[in-house]
């Protein structure tokens, strides 16, 4: 988790909380990571890990009473959390594009796709109506929509789910942002459509050197797409590192269990590795290491103290086990 001045995005000790009648719930708990220009960072974890809240917190879209309680988010060195709403709105769309699981979150069903694209383009770029229209056609072509010129006049419901998600990608990229945050962009899609969408997203972001935070629960999608991956559990990042290291030789006991529990499409095995229990609710996050009740290595320290994040190999791990033990785990997990 090195921070350098060239980083595109730097997140430091980000905390997201929900005040409730029964006290304050911490959904994102002191996470830190950075992202280089053009880099694809996977944010992975099971449901309830805090992935989506992290994504929405970064772009100032947390729904009240949810709030950033502490920590900083810097875009090219400039702190963007705490900016006035209108300034954040300018950053969204222009410098940070967004793609959500449901394309209809980003598309207005009452307007033609072309109108929405042209409006977004003209909001952020100094182009004439005709130039913006041409750019909209180019964008639709780039995301692989056949007969793009004609499709400008179609409404969102006239597209298939996959084609709609392509339109959303076109919208997200319309102003050539430096960063795209994609939250489960393919989760609602069939596997063949998912393959197409991932291919489009990867190709365009590489061509335009756009960095991506790809939020998903699907390790396969991460393996296909990400350069680095951060694994979240109960609001914390438990492991972060180069994608190949994390997937092929996970070090943290949770990551190792997670990888072992995925049926391997390349091979059959009698039994899957199974982690007992499930992700805790926010009201019941265990003391110490949040994973301790499910961890086969937990000791007294794990039950009382929170493990610090420390560098191991080319990545970082939040676990009390020493380096030799973690490495032994990773060797055992190697596929």
């Amino acid at each position, binding site marked *: 988790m090195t921070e350098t001045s060239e980083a595109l995005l730097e997140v430091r000790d980000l905390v997201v909380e929900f005040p409730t009648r029964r006290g304050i719930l911490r959904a994102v708990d002191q996470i830190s990571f950075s992202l280089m220009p053009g880099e694809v960072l996977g944010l992975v974890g*099971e*449901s309830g890990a805090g992935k989506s809240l992290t994504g929405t917190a970064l772009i100032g879209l947390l729904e009240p009473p949810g709030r950033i309680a502490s920590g900083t988010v810097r875009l090219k060195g400039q702190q963007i959390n705490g900016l006035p709403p209108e300034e954040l709105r300018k950053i969204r769309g222009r410098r940070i594009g967004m793609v959500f699981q449901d394309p209809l979150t980003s598309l207005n069903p009452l307007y033609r796709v072309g109108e929405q694209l042209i409006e977004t383009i003209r909001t952020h770029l100094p182009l004439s109506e005709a130039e913006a229209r041409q750019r909209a056609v180019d964008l639709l072509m780039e995301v692989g929509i056949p007969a793009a010129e004609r499709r400008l006049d179609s409404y969102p419901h006239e597209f*298939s789910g*996959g*084609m709609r998600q392509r339109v959303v990608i076109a919208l997200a990229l319309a102003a050539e942002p430096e960063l795209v945050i994609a939250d489960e962009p393919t989760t609602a899609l*069939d*596997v*063949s*459509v*998912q*393959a*197409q969408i*991932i*291919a489009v997203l990867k190709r365009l972001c590489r061509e335009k050197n756009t960095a991506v935070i790809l939020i998903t*629960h*699907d*390790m*396969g*999608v991460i*393996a*296909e797409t990400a350069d680095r991956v951060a694994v979240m559990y109960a609001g914390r990042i438990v492991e972060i590192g180069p*994608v*190949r290291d994390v*997937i*092929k030789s996970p070090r943290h006991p949770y990551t190792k*269990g*997670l990888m*072992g*529990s*995925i*049926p*391997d*499409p*390349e091979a*059959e*095995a*009698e*039994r*899957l*590795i*199974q*982690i*007992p229990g*499930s*992700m805790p609710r926010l009201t019941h996050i265990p003391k110490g290491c949040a994973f301790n009740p499910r961890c086969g290595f937990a000791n007294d320290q794990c039950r009382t103290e929170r493990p610090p994040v420390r560098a191991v190999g080319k990545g970082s791990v939040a676990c009390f086990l020493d380096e030799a033990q973690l490495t032994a785990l990773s060797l055992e997990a190697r*596929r």
Partner: protein
Amino acid sequence: MTAVASASHADAVPLLTVEGLRCVFDVSKPWLNRVLEGASKQSLQAVDDVSFFIPKGETFALVGESGSGKSTIAKMIVGLLRPTNGEIRFDGTDITKVGNAAEMRRLRRRFQMIFQDPYASLNPRMRVDTIIAEPLRAFGILSEDGAIATRVAELLRLVRLDPADGVKFPHEFSGGQRQRIAIARALAGNPEFLVCDEPTSALDVSVQAQILNLMKDLQAEFGLTYLLISHNLAVVRHMATRVGVLYLGRLVEVAPSRQLFTAPRHPYTRMLLDAVPDLAMSGRQRLPVQGEIPNPITPPSGCFYHPRCPLANERCTQERPALVPAAEGYVACHAVAEGRAA
């Protein structure tokens, strides 16, 4: 397609045989709209001449993308939906033709279904022990309260839950625990056959692993036969003995699991396998996915896959390919039959 249904592989005794199964839905606009707008009646073939069999103790999986007809087949098998045509023989009896209510009840007890969303299938106002006891009472398996309580506790232990959890309500459990409750209820009447429609699709992978392991344990312990329906190819490979691949309501390939995953024959199966993310990061060469699934109300002529198929020719646009034997399975493809598919 009788050959498919009656083919004997090894010494398999089919517990379930499905032959020429078809389901057509009327998807016309309401009568008044048709009159006013001059629209004609429209129908949708959700399941189109599907045949397969499942030997006792095995797991047969149906895979396919959404809308391929998987759930419709499941519902017809468990009697939630009437087939338009076709036979469903369970242990020799065509269950679509059983007229006698008592016989149907006897048969119904022998097969059960598990759904994707366990919450929707569990009555939120009922205690878990009452939910699990329901089939025991309904099928008249047990009537005495003490015996029922003992059996419910046994079932809860079987699915690795605490018998003390019986007094709780469904909302007090996690998704994975709810699916265990649904399994316990399904097992109450000692069924031989379980239809599992996307049983882990709503669950996290670590919880999915628990449920898949449990399903395997239960199968080994009780000799259960499974029809597993899933869009997740890795899950299917992990669980199934044999696999059928559906495309727009038609079976395009049926093969032993290992053969299907290591040497797929049908161009659609190949595309589907290539589309699965490469978790092993092997960097293997894959063909890009062409096109999208067509509208099922107006499917293409001939082979439904022809607009997307790299091997399509004139014949494919005209003639529906029959499901014919290929290696240890069956494939419905002209190119495979003609020896054109490498």
